[in-house]
């Protein structure tokens, strides 16, 4: 395992420094939130590390390809290193054009609950990144009087409060290259930002174009109203 992820540990160098400075956990917020939000690339890179080291053991994200990581700021060499470290089912290594690996978990391993594909989970579950964060940090001991289903874990955030996914994040489950302290909540927030990017890779661009379009059409509207009034006034 170590060998596979060695190239990953070099990630984040490009953005190291400023990432550590900002505390997004108290209160919890994401740079991607809100109408003008954009993907926090440093957080999403760290989130990818969490995904690749922890979540990918059970979850695929097959709408993503290793080459897509370029959008998060990885160099071609880094991406190639990431892909080369992934072993596909037939034993060969992944390439830049492979989709994020499907570990093909049998549903029977989790009492019939198949780990869902994570490509668009942030768009699909109400609450998006906030929900994923709450889910990953929401494990607790079941309160008295709650009978747990076999193979399930008590989780405040999950609808029905009993989830088949074990608590997988713990402090220092990964080591961040940019020096950010890998607490459990930091890992959860980072992977939530990563999954937000996965579900909506063009979020930043979309908001940028949108802002310009709104300014442009508001301006055009004002000009159109003025000219309309002038034309109608002068005509009669």
């Amino acid at each position, binding site marked *: 395992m170590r060998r596979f992820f060695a190239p990953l540990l070099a990630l984040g160098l490009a953005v190291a420094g400023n990432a550590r400075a900002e505390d997004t956990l108290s209160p919890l917020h994401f740079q991607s939130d809100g109408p003008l939000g954009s993907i926090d690339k440093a957080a999403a890179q760290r989130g990818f590390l969490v995904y690749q080291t922890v979540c990918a053991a059970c979850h695929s994200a097959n*709408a993503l390809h290793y080459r897509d990581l370029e959008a998060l700021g990885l160099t071609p060499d880094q991406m190639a290193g990431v892909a080369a470290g992934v072993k596909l089912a037939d034993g060969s290594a992944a390439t830049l054009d492979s989709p994020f690996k499907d570990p093909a978990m049998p549903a029977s391993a989790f009492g019939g609950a198949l780990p869902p594909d994570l490509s668009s989970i942030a768009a*699909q579950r109400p609450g998006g990144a906030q929900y994923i964060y709450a889910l990953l940090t929401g494990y607790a001991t079941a309160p008295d009087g709650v009978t747990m289903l076999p193979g399930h874990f008590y989780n405040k955030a999950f609808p029905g409060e009993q989830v088949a996914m074990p608590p997988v994040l713990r402090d220092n489950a990964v080591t961040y290259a940019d020096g950010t302290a890998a607490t459990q909540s930091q890992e959860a927030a980072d992977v939530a930002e990563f999954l937000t990017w996965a579900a909506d890779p063009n979020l930043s661009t979309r908001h940028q174009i*949108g802002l310009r379009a*709104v300014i442009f059409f508001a301006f055009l509207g004002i000009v159109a109203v003025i000219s309309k009034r002038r034309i109608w006034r002068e005509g009669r």
Partner: protein
Amino acid sequence: MTTETKQIPCLGALCACLCAPVHKPEGKYLDTLPGLTAILLAFLTLSGLVLAVYYDPWHAFASVGFIGHEVNNGWLVQAYHATGATALFGLVYLYLFRAMLTRGYRAPGELVWGLGVKLMAVLLLVGWLGFVLTGGAAAYWSLFKASNGALALSGAAGAIGGWFFGGPAGSGTLARLELFHAVLAVGAMAVLWLLFAARRAVVPRAEPGQGVAFFPYYLAQYLVALAVFALIFSVLAFFTPHLGQPAVNALPADPLTLPLGTVLPWYLLPLAGIAQALPGIWGGILGVVGALAVLAALPWLDRSGPAGAKGGLYCVFTWVLAADVIGLGITAAARNYPQASLLLVLFTFWYFFHFLVLTPFVTAIEAK
């Protein structure tokens, strides 16, 4: 006449038509709704063409993902097309509602009104087909239910359904539905064109010497309407590209799990509510057909006569009807509480009660 217009006669005719001072000077901004609808339909056709080039009905969900992720600016075209559908229904619903409020459906406007309802009906079908083409979890189940329902019918209806869907929903179904989606969209344009022709025939003309020409007066008005529309469209397309779309549709279809929550785009929800309120497949079909039929019959259900007073009470009831339709949509969207079925029945009852009982009585009384 300039040389150009002499050499190209149709240009001369166009100029003469645009510059003829025949329009009444008090045109309203909302009169531009059909024009905006036409522009938007053209825009949807263009964006749809781009999507169709890359779309693969045999791997619908994967190809939608491919367009969004791999095709250059594919995500942008998808956002345009999806938001275009939302905006289109916004325009059409607003247009019809305004005609109800101003009672523009009365003679001589019955034909225009009927074509407006027909346009909405065709667009609803086109919208549903487009939604089904996404191949997501919600789309899959909607198609599954519709095709199973259609095939379970006996007689001619079953035969038509069987031909339309080509058998139980399978991987080939979407290939034919893609075709219907495109052809019916062109059909909607034809209906809109008829609507324009019918409207031109009945719209009152200005007295000689009192009128204004389209150019530049109404062109200036159109530009304002277009700019405002484009502004609203940009907000929707760039900041909420999935507005009114069921979130479960972001997931691939799983034939073993029925999705929970809202499963249809917003513009189909009121009709879906009526269909769900009535029992059985036939109940659903009759509900939908009946709901559209009473709407189309409005000019004849209104007993006030062409020049009758525009009563205030009936206007209030029209607003209540709007609230009722919104209520239908909201209830159909969130069916997760026990009273939902009862509410749907009540809202459906009120819808038909409004048209079949209230409309004739209230308008007849108010016209006295």
